[in-house]
């Protein structure tokens, strides 16, 4: 049995766990003992990660997947087969089932469509900066800026009432907290699907100009499928960018020369956002794929039925692909990072996330040129206990 087990505990806030990071330069795949005792693999090499994520011989279906994090083993056991057996939850489907759902949505998330949202994202961002100023010093950047921006944007896009945020944000927190018990996870799933199912009924009765209404009127999906699609988009739409904005600001505050470049040099912004995505890689556990047949990857034989987990934070610092990748350097060519994944499941909302960050970081730093932490760095609470990494709170002053 392999002694290597997955962990989310970190020695330093921006670096992957030493135990896993140390494997990075050594070999692309390592034997890993999953939380249920399954003997599978952990990928830390960039080319191997890209190859497996794009390979249809590796499945993303929940019934083949073994959990990596010990706290999730009980949940996985109780939910066996039910976990994401939500119709329409196409993240956990393979082609061609996955293709049908994704193609219904991709037209709504094109580079051009997302560009059209820029003026509205700017308005929302500036309103949140006003709210942050009004909150007074010190203030929590997550509460006033990092979480509300993507929440407001995804709510408007989907047609989910923002006033309901306390409900859906609490469900999504329970789903993503690694310490949630099986009953809590099941409750949160039930509450979220119930909430969205009711919303879909209202959209059917009174359609509006939003994505969910469009899908309802398109008539291609049944209500339970629509619920699963809305579930995925709502959770993915705010938990991700929110954590990038929070953790990204923290990382910039700890790297003042990089912060100054992001604030003062517009030509740095686009690539700088890619570098923050690479350096911080908030998807710190998962994805996981399972081999549908024996597959050889860079000299390693992955057997049929074996699960393969990825440490994307380590993959994105593979010295062969990103030399010196342990430091934050906004001028580094950072394109090609795997933070949004690779293959058919690559993030649907990535162009929206880019716009939110390309607007959000410079706007924040220009509005508050004296922005700084209001607590010692060791008191910033890190999300080592959540499936998506970031900061729980970021107390700042200016």
């Amino acid at each position: 049995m392999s002694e290597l087990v997955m962990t989310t505990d970190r020695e330093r806030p921006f670096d992957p766990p030493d135990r896993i990071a140390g494997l990075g330069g050594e070999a692309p795949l390592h034997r890993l003992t999953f939380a249920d005792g399954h003997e599978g693999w952990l990928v830390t090499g960039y080319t191997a990660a890209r190859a497996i994520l794009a390979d249809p011989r590796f499945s993303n279906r929940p019934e083949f997947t073994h959990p990596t994090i010990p706290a999730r083993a009980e949940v996985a056991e109780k939910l066996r087969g039910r976990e994401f057996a939500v119709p329409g939850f196409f993240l956990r489907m393979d082609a061609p089932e996955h293709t049908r759902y994704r193609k219904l949505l991709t037209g709504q998330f094109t580079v051009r469509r997302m560009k059209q949202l820029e003026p509205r994202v700017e308005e929302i961002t500036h309103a949140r900066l006003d709210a942050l100023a009004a909150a007074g010093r010190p203030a929590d950047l997550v509460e006033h800026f990092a979480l509300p921006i993507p929440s407001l944007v995804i709510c408007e896009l989907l047609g989910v009432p923002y006033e309901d945020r306390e409900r859906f944000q609490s469900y999504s927190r329970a789903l993503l907290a690694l310490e949630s018990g099986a009953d809590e996870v099941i409750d949160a799933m039930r509450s979220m699907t119930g909430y969205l199912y009711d919303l879909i009924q209202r959209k059917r009765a009174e359609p509006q100009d939003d994505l969910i209404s469009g899908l309802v009127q398109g008539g291609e999906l049944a209500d339970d499928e629509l619920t699963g699609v809305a579930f995925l988009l709502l959770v993915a739409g705010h938990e991700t960018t929110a954590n990038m904005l929070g953790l990204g600001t923290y990382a910039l505050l700890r790297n003042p020369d990089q912060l100054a470049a992001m604030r003062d040099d517009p030509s740095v912004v686009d690539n700088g956002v890619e570098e923050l995505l690479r350096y911080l890689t908030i998807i710190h556990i998962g994805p996981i794929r399972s081999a549908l047949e024996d597959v050889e990857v860079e000299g390693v034989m992955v057997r049929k039925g074996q699960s393969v987990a990825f440490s994307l934070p380590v993959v994105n610092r593979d010295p062969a692909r990103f030399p010196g990748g342990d430091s934050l350097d906004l001028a580094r060519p950072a394109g090609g990072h795997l933070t949004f994944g690779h293959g058919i499941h690559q993030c649907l909302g990535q162009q929206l996330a880019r716009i939110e960050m390309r607007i959000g970081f410079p706007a924040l730093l220009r509005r508050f040129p004296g922005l700084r932490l209001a607590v010692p760095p060791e008191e910033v609470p890190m999300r080592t206990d959540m499936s998506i990494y970031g900061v729980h709170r970021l107390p700042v002053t200016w």
Partner: protein
Amino acid sequence: MKIKADTTVCIGAGMCALTVPQVFDQSDEDGTVVLLETSPPAELEDGVRRAVTLCPSGALSIAE
């Protein structure tokens, strides 16, 4: 350089349209790749190669 795009494989991630918008666009219908140029001018060839590498679904290829 000649670019080929397979819209049956494309998943509409938009990496190509983000990288070289002069050459790649996306359909409003299903987000799949639309080639604005099949033989791009020399100064865009590096960008096109980058876009082909970035494509997550392997929908793009180049015939020199």
